[in-house]
């Protein structure tokens, strides 16, 4: 038979380490980062929120193979819903997250019923169109959303009634981290479930999937709604932590950036989403700090280098390195 390199996946025996190691590394990473960069909590919190957002997109693009450029739709709806909820109903953060998730899921459901029938370029454009319509609506509904100036007046109560959001952003950091951690665990269960396997099947061959009797459309809508709910949570987190929602939450650039971060890290691998986000945002932050006018060069070359030398994304770097010797 051909060489071992065609072996698909690790056999079950080594699953033990693979199951527990990554979350532990993640947890340890958070503590180390918290300890090493106490002054960058604001920025690191943004990374964490973005990780939640990119993870939600990974489920849709990386696993189910549904390529959209309108993921910001769910993020924005989650943000506005959580913001409005905090202003008008309750300042409780966790309730707000639930509302954000519901809003994200709802818009994903409504738009997904249409989008999940489309493919390829027309799917990309439809998803952009949905986001554009939402953005324009938010922009015109100034009385409710504050329009282009943004939704102001959000002030959050303490998390779980105990942890006040502080000036330095410690609470915000750990709050965002806990949400990320929970979402990650949930997604790990989902992608290792029969549903997750079915999503990968859909990505690989929709026609075959139909031929084994899968109600494709329903599975895709379900994945989209789940991804939408998580994106809504990411949006809600932003609204709560920044205390402001702007129509930029619906930006096309945001949707595109999410895709770039995901592919950069490695789509279809949860940790790829995390690594891609971390690397992209950190490089961006540092490069922009050094030369705000020309950092785009750095990002451009980094992105090119990754596609050319690590086509499976940054997450394949360790594998690559190991293969060198």
């Amino acid at each position, binding site marked *: *038979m*051909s060489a071992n390199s*065609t*072996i*698909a*996946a690790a*056999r*079950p025996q080594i699953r033990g380490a693979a199951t527990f190691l990554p979350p532990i590394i993640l947890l340890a990473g958070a503590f180390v980062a918290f300890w090493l960069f106490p002054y960058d909590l604001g920025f690191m919190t943004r990374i964490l929120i973005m990780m939640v957002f990119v993870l939600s997109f990974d489920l849709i693009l990386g696993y189910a193979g549904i390529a959209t450029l309108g993921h910001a739709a769910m993020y924005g709806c989650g943000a506005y819903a959580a913001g409005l909820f905090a202003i008008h109903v309750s300042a409780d953060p966790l309730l707000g997250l639930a509302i954000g998730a519901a809003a994200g899921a709802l818009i994903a459901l409504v738009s997904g019923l249409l989008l999940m029938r489309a493919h390829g370029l027309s799917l990309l454009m439809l998803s952009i169109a949905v986001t554009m319509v939402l953005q324009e609506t938010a922009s015109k509904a100034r009385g409710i959303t504050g329009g282009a100036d943004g939704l102001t007046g959000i002030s959050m109560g303490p998390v779980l009634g105990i942890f006040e959001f502080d000036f330095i952003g410690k609470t915000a950091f750990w709050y965002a981290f806990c949400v990320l951690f929970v979402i990650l665990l949930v997604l790990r*269960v*989902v992608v*290792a*479930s*029969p*549903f*997750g*396997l*079915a999503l*990968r*099947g859909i*990505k*690989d*061959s929709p*026609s*075959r999937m*139909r*031929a*084994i*009797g*899968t*109600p*494709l459309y*329903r*599975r895709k809508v*379900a994945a989209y709604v789940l991804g939408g709910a998580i994106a809504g949570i990411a949006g809600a987190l932003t609204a709560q932590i920044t205390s402001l929602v702007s129509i930029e939450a619906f930006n096309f650039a945001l949707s595109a950036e999410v895709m770039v971060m995901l592919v950069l890290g490695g789509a279809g691998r949860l940790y790829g989403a995390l690594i891609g986000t971390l690397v992209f945002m950190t490089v961006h932050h540092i490069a922009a700090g050094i030369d705000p006018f020309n950092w785009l060069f750095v990002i451009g070359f980094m992105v090119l280098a990754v596609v050319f030398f690590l086509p499976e994304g940054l997450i394949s770097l360790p594998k690559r390195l190991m293969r060198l010797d």
Partner: protein
Amino acid sequence: MTTGLQVRNVSKNFGGLRVARDITLDLPAGARTALIGPNGAGKTTFANLIIGALEPTSGSIYLDGHDISKLPEATRVGAGIAKTFQITNLFRSLSVRDNVRLPILERERRTASFLRRYDGDSAVEEEVEKTLAEFQLLPLADHLVRNLAYGQQRLVELALTLSLKPRILILDEPAAGVPSSDSHLIIDAIKRLPADLSVLIIEHDMELVFEVANRIIVLVNGTILVEGTPQEISQDPKVRELYLGAGHG
């Protein structure tokens, strides 16, 4: 109640091209039917009409007396109709094992659940291993399908479809690309199928057809030319002229 599949006056046009013309036939439980005919006669199209990948221009299809002509493909598969693809159509970036596991999970209506692991059910896992062993695919179980040779992929194609445990099984050229040395694997698999299963085999390999079929339908230009036992068909002069040629008989 009539069991099995009934096709009644089914026609299919692609624009001006009439690929199926008023086809009527029965696939009763337990039948081993072969569908043969020249290239482009409409065999694959006919299979697609039954499975629901194509919609007939006119006519109806009944399963156990129920009209299924309007049902979507996935529902028909759920009701027990399955088909292999003439041009291999597999989950190329999944392992061989997952390619077999997925249809079993689907058959067991598990793919909507996301709380347990996909390899967590011992009954399913046992069946996966058994199926792989049957097709001598165990050594390849953890390879990605896209890295297999074409003939190996054909075997996976068959294994995958059989894991659906259908009641009506359509095999579109199951042996194409499988070397004669391995075609016994396919013949064996077909022979092992449960007796009450209805099988429709589309195949150009006459040795295989004569070995497994007890009834042969010859399709030419979208219509049924003749229908009969293997014996009758191989003697039919028209079939010999249009299809079999001099080498068989």
